[in-house]
């Protein structure tokens, strides 16, 4: 296949690759969203589907030193790609787990930095996770027929790994002059530092997420109770963290159940929450259920350690009829 035929074929098949890339992106985003993550927070760079331009594809197929493709059109597997950039190594694991567990495609795990580290323990270089995904069967997406041999490259990396990749790709790989060994050395040093920092990030997040509130997913349980009672989605703020922090010792595995029981015994509180939702404050947050519960069951401790002004407790005490200053 000469360059002209190559370009023609690529122009013809671009919509197929685009459709497959769109499907992969949408599917992974849905999977991550369903696991309870907010996509805006989870992905540090909004992921998008990228088709290789004609020029760069031809360049890679015919002029890249060291690459000698026998069937360049099919051998090049990153004609369409999707990149996911996240903050933490554990976020990468989450995406990998989803990709590997999905029945929507067959996957080929062609690169993982953990394997690279084992293989070349003395080398500090580009780190990322790469998958090639292909449809299991011919299928139709948005009116386009996608064949099983259509590859899509998925890259998954941390923000720091991405920063390193950007630097090496743009500044070194495309450098017009020969790169000095000292520069290679400095780039390798920065990768060593990035790997160390990623480990520290993991460590910090782990320590921050240790505790009963996270262990028993109390926030999420309260959100669910709040929503099922009021039919309103809670607007949680940082103040709920401060409250959980102060009264962590009352957070147990049974707490969500206890609060559910408490709310069904005091179902009039649902109307109080709904009618005060617009007045803001604690009423908009699902932690309000925990505060009501403490007001009834642990009033003295609540008042002793309450992290905000007592005025914030007054309206809730009025709803429950609990005397604060008798």
């Amino acid at each position, binding site marked *: 296949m000469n360059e002209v035929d190559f370009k023609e074929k690529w122009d013809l098949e671009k919509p197929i690759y685009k459709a497959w890339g769109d499907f992969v992106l949408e599917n992974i985003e849905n999977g991550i969203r369903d696991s309870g993550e907010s996509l805006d927070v989870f992905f540090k760079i909004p992921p998008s589907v990228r088709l290789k331009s004609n020029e760069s594809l031809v360049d890679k197929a015919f002029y890249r030193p060291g690459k000698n493709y026998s069937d360049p059109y099919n051998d090049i597997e990153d004609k369409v790609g999707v990149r996911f950039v996240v903050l933490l190594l554990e976020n990468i694991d989450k995406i990998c787990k989803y990709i590997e567990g999905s029945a929507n495609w067959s996957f080929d795990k062609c690169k993982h930095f953990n394997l690279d580290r084992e293989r070349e323990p003395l080398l500090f270089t580009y780190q990322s996770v790469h998958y090639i995904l292909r449809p299991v069967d011919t299928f139709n997406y948005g009116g386009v027929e996608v064949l099983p041999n259509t590859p899509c490259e998925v890259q998954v990396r941390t923000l720091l790994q991405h920063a390193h990749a950007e630097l090496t790709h743009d500044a070194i790989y495309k450098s017009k002059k020969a790169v000095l060994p000292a520069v290679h050395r400095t780039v390798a040093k920065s990768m060593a530092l990035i790997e160390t920092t990623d480990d520290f990030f993991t460590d910090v997040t782990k320590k921050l997420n240790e505790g009963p509130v996270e262990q028993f997913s109390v926030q999420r349980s309260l959100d669910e109770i709040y929503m099922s009672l009021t039919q309103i989605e809670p607007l949680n703020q940082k103040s709920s963290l401060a409250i959980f922090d102060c009264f962590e010792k009352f957070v147990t595995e049974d707490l969500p159940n206890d609060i559910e029981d408490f709310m069904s015994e*005091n*179902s*009039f*509180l649902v*109307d*109080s929450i709904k009618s005060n939702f617009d007045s803001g404050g604690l009423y908009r947050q699902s932690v309000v259920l925990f505060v009501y519960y403490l007001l*009834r*069951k*642990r*009033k*003295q*401790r609540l008042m*002793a350690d309450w992290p905000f002004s007592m005025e914030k407790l*007054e*309206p809730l*005490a*009025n*709803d*429950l*009829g*609990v*005397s*604060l*200053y*008798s």
Partner: protein
Amino acid sequence: MQLINFSVDRIIIHQVFQRGPEGEKIKPLQSHDFTRFDNTAMDAFKSRVRDALGDGSKAVQMEIVDEDKNGMPAIVNEIVGKDDADFVVSSYDVAKKLTDAQKTRGIPGGIVVVFTGTHGAHKHKFLGVIKAEIYSAYEKLIDKKTNEISLKYVEEVLLTPGTKLYKTAGFFERVGSLSDSDGLNSKWSVLISDNQISQTDGKAAAMYFYSDFLGCGYPETSARTTKKFYDAASAFIKQMNVSAEKKIDLYNALTTYLKVNTSSVVSPQEFGSSYFDVDTQDEFIAHLSEKGLPPTSFTKDNAHIASKLKVRKVQFSKNVKIIAPSDVFKDLVSIETIEGDLDESGAPKVWTRILVKDLVVNQE
């Protein structure tokens, strides 16, 4: 009786006066319109009512005694459902009733707030009355130019936080009102908060309010409730994870609180805060609630526990007993846990050292 989900819809305020120099009644001053609070003022008002009558307050449940058609309970029963125009007029009867009840010059005047609203999950009616005494205070002023703070003397202030300076009563319509055979008690549940009742020997001083004015009396169940409290508190102390000495102190405290303290009200909250740390207080209150004690305070009657309060008993496993009158026990007997001989496993046995500050006068 639990004050939950309450809202206030009508508030009217009249003024009552101290008796004149010759002991003559002075006609109360009548308002002809409702007081309309803005949201903040209304929230503050609700907070006052809640602090006076809510869970953990010093309020006590009372029973309606005066079933006469001119008595306060009958007045409440009649006016609570009236439309606004009639209610404005009839609420003045409450002020007149209070004026009649204030028989001596020693009782100060003040304002009478009469208010209605709903309470409970099913929004039953209630009528509340507050007698707030008027006193003086200072208002903080800041000079805008110099930022200097000064105090302005304000002669008449009322309803400040803290329930000491106002008396509150609430007549709450009962859920699923019982038959009329029990009279007004079947329809109304009454909570009264009056700091005077819980003061030492305050019963007589408070009587004009709860009895002469409100037509209520101590409930017949007081003795039963007091015994329930004694049993529940004893059980709580028994299961506490503290030393034997500490338990003995707590039993002594319980006996003293019920027997020696002359207040005619038992406030579990007050007992808890005097003798327990914060978390234990919460556990104590939760324990009492589990045992069916009311969430507020209650009137004391030691009739069913008089003999128990008279003596303190400490018993050991092999039938060794120490029995002493409770006041003597507190002063003359001290008990201490010590480490005894080692048991089979090598751990010291728990022994008890008893000190009696007296000599033996008799033995058999």
